[in-house]
């Protein structure tokens, strides 16, 4: 049976606009140049990449599907769940690639010292952002999940600045810290995850995994009526 391969489909039907891809590359380039010019920015180099991924991973599924853009894929022989996983992979791939490149630049410039860009905290933040932004946007228009998340982060920063200071592993209960990492994953960037933080970080990652599972199930079960038909 001649199936429409999901990964190949999403290579042809890009989930990211050219502007988003250019923005990601620009953010990565600025971070890499910053690392080369000023070693002191190492701990902050991945922050703009994580921020950009918040928007880049918010590709959305439902709107494209309701316009019929995914009909060929969804009727072309590939099981829905495989199409959904390919959608996830292709949504987060550009941001993850830029993060890895920035990490490689840092590693090349600071041979022998541990990488801050690829440290455990940065990896956890990148995972959280990639998974949650993608999952939250699946039933909504592109970018909506990332924009909503940014609004929540900004609001939390304004309303509860003391809560956002709970970094370093000793500042709060696991639940409060876990919620903090979900609301503002940037506090994890550029440092390793301390043993005392591990339960909170794992809790946040478990929530992200549950969100991804729910989004995959949504795609698998969703009815895809054309906008004009409803």
């Amino acid at each position, binding site marked *: 049976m001649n199936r*429409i391969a999901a990964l190949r489909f999403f290579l042809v039907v890009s989930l990211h606009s050219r502007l988003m891809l250019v923005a990601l590359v620009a953010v990565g380039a600025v971070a890499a140049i910053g690392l080369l010019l000023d070693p002191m920015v190492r701990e902050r180099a991945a922050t703009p990449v994580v921020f950009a991924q918040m928007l880049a991973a918010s590709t959305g599924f439902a709107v494209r599907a309701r316009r019929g*853009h995914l009909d060929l894929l969804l009727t072309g022989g590939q099981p829905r769940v495989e199409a959904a996983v390919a959608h996830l992979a292709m949504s987060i791939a550009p941001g993850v690639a830029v993060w890895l490149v920035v990490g490689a630049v840092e590693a090349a410039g600071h041979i022998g010292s541990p990488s801050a860009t690829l440290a455990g905290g940065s990896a956890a933040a990148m995972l959280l952002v990639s998974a949650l932004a993608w999952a939250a946007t699946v039933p909504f228009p592109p970018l909506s999940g990332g924009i909503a998340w940014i609004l929540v982060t900004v609001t939390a920063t304004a309303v509860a600045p003391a809560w956002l200071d709970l970094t370093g592993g000793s500042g709060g209960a696991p639940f409060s810290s876990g919620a903090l990492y979900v609301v503002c994953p940037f506090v994890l960037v550029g440092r390793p995850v301390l043993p005392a933080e591990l339960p909170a970080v794992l809790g946040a990652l478990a929530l992200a995994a549950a969100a991804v599972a729910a989004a995959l199930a949504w795609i698998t079960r969703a009815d895809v009526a054309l906008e004009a038909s409803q």
Partner: protein
Amino acid sequence: MTSEPVVLVRNVAARYGIREVFRSVDFELHAGRALGVLGPSGAGKTTLLRMLVGLIRPADGEILVDGMAPRRAVTCVPVGYFGGEATLPGAVRAARWGTLGTGSAVMAERRRIRTLARGTRQVLGLRTVLGRQQLRLVVLDEAWEGLDPDASRWLSATIETKRDRGAAVVLSSHRLHDLAGVCDSYLFLVNHGATLLHAQEISPVGTVTAATLTSVFDRLRGGAACFRAVS
């Protein structure tokens, strides 16, 4: 017809929220047969066709494609579905889209899909879907829309070839003369219900024409639709 039908539709209904689109739709479609779906705008033609390929689940009733629920069937049975040029993603280059069906380009055009003429977009979508080999079920929504006479003839010939090679074909169109020459039976979606008529029932002697389809269509919905001229 003793063989198992490719498509079996039993007492199917469609609703969007509280709005009923249609109810009690029943038909069977066997391999090597073509069904035309007719009805006024909003009668549920597109909804029914999307149900057949598993994109929408019926509110009531059952649809089986080769004995399986459509959503499962499309992963096991080669199914070709095209919902019209408006469903193509405009930002993709035509030549690249054309490779998705078979791996080789069906059109050399390098421009983005949204910059193509409507008929060219329609041909691109049709050739991408119909280029796939050994299709068991072909479902085309408003397939002749926007096509020039040459492309229309190509499409009719391609559909007949697919049907003669054993595919079950489901077509919808507002252009009754296109359906008239191709289909073995016709499903009229009118007044939230459905009426299935075989070609022999519509035209016992001779072939079904657009005129006979129009007259049956008007009779089923209780008279011709009247549109007042606008000056």
